[in-house]
């Protein structure tokens, strides 16, 4: 199961959950599973940045997630 971590500023959308394990094979599937748990979170998660196994994605969707993946949601980064 993939390890999924939410930073503190997303805890209000996850009822305070910081970390959980999810059985999923893609980012899209992960988001849909989380949406079932916390209705409304999909729009938050798809507008934030995510790191999957160390790789940063500004707009993830079909990216693969394996059983030993680590998924971190992060604040979106822009630049100057």
């Amino acid at each position: 199961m993939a390890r999924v971590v939410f930073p503190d500023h997303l805890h209000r959308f996850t009822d305070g959950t910081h970390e959980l394990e999810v059985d999923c094979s893609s980012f899209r599937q992960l988001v849909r599973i989380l949406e079932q748990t916390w209705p409304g979170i999909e729009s938050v998660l798809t507008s934030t940045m995510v790191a999957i196994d160390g790789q940063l994605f500004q707009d993830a969707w079909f990216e693969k997630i394996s059983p030993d993946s680590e998924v971190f949601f992060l604040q979106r980064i822009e630049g100057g």
Partner: protein
Amino acid sequence: MAEAANFKAIGTRPIRPDGVEKVTGRANFGADLNLPDMLHGKVLRSPHAHARIKRIDLTKAQAMEGVYAAISSADFPQEVTLSLSKNILARDKALYHGHALAAVAARTPRIAEEALERIEVEYEVLPPVLILDDAMQEKSTLVSEDLRTNDDESSPPSNIAATQRFERGDVTQGFAEADVIVQEEFRVPSAHQGYIEPHACVATSNPGGRVTIWCTTQGPFEVRSATAGVLNKTVSDIKVIPSEIGGGFGGKTVVYLEPVAVRLSELTGKPVKMVMNREEVFRATGPASATLCKIKVGAKKDGRITAATAWLAYEAGAFPGSPVGPGCMSVFAPYDIDNFLVEGYDVLVNKPKVAAYRAPGAPQSMHAMECAIDELAQKLDMDPIDLRLKNAAKEGTVAPYGPKFPPIGLVECLEAAKRHPNYVNKPSEEVGRGVAVGFWFNIGMQSSAEVTIAEDGAVSIMEGSPDIGGSRASMCLMAAETLGVPYETINAHVGDTESTGFCNLTGGSRTTFATGLAVVKACEDVIAQCKARAAMTWELDVEQVAWRDGQAVPKPGVNIDVDPLSLADIAKTMSRTGGPLLGRASLNAQGAGACFSVNWTDVTIDRETGKVDVKAFTAIQDAGRAIHPSYVEGQMQGGAVQGLGWALNEEYIYDENGVVENASFLDYRVPVASDMPMIDCEIVEVPNPSHPYGVRGVGETPIVAPLAATSNAVRDLLGFRINDLPLSPPNVLAAIDEAD
């Protein structure tokens, strides 16, 4: 990935394709466009930093001869409640001195300015909130009465728009294990990007609602979407044509004038030109956040960091959205720390809404951390680079913001610094030296490119990333390398929003990485077509054809006696082999590798005046792979000078009413050439595995380390630390006097 030694084009330093136009004054920048029958737009700005707008009467202005239209926010779609819209034209409240209230379009700029004076505004003046510490108090005057922290409706209104928090391990235990602890507070003032070219645009609309905007911007597609959002249009109604750009550094990722010019054009039926003057740029466009950063770091005697905490408050200006998030994520990024806590606060004040400025958020927080690391080195009597090497993040280190680092070049940069002659040669007693590390995440995002081949084999690249730092040359070099043709046969063009595929803005150090990736893939598309046409010509299967050194050749073992076909050969006969050669690519680039740097500053101080002189500055940075080394060095040098300016002199000086007192380059002191030594550069290359040539973005990181490197150099020379920037003569002199 090919080794550097095998590259023919990449790593060379040819003249940029746009160079002649720019140095001969032929290039067109934002304010250079004039259209027949064009009007001139001007903006009325608030004289108060905080005031309720009770009434705006435009009638006298509208009645003036030569005035064609006058508007206020009432002329914008009221159903659009974006803060962007409220920043472009204030609604119920003016939220900072210089906030736009109304605009006019007139036959001449002078008539427009006179018309502004006829606009009557009735205010209820309110006390402004100007200082972070005040704004964070529970009983502070509110910039916005509706704002609640983190949108939590159960909490009372506050100037704290959002909070951040990152935590790992056990901070209490970590500090208990420390032999040495450093705890300090640091303030960094607002600094402006200081682009030489002010914001400027021309907008024209036709009766069918179609709009064309010419403007200076880092992102024409973002101007299109922002203007559409503010004016409640569809993006297909709007075409944006970017001019050449005279600097941006993040400040031209935002729209201020374009929706106003469009609305004025719609009302008058004529083109409308709007150009900010320098004072407007200072008073009404976004600077970088002013910050208060509190840092605590503990370490063992051997230098290993055991725990760290950061408390970071960033001014957002009048609307939410400071870069405190990246500030929190970057503050400990260079280090492998088991126990840490980072807390961040996005705080509203009655000042202009902040905007991105090179590595937005990182210079301020990392200034605090890098000064604390320097203090730690002093206490431990360790070389500051050795201390950083002891704790440096490397491939596999779990970054403080969560993910594991892929290959990164911090250790390589630190090792390069240790052996650099400028570091090996110790400064004399009258010279102070300070070291600091810089970091930026880098981003990818969406880019498109088209590569067309002319009938003589000449190559034309069309892409949508405005060229701020020589990116056309970098695109041409990557195309030359990929296609195997001479650089001189290639040209690159920046298209408008209807002539090229979508490209996100030039920012975040993404262009050479992401748009470059699109160019490489578009070239590969051309190569695939060339191979197919050669196969057709030779009556072979395409799998039997290779592309080598700019030519189609039969693969080894294919028994056929033919001459290779060059790109020009294939182009010459393309009408007979399938028509024009056109390669395309569009992508959402992922894997922009993080970029680290190491800088050190050598300074002297005039103890009579407090003036700090930079005698030498050395920048070492991981570029992944330097496509055009001169432009990598240009980014390193430009970022260093901006960082040195921020460290030494740059700050917004406000009076008690929230009025900026130094809104000109005469009083807002950016470095000039005579202030600066030669910025020595060394490029380290730890290739980014997510790019075919190993590219990492290089434009953001260079501004990060100079702030702390300069602070640390001053501390080295004085023997005590001045925690707050800028290290301007009055501030340094006051500190020396106090110490004496």
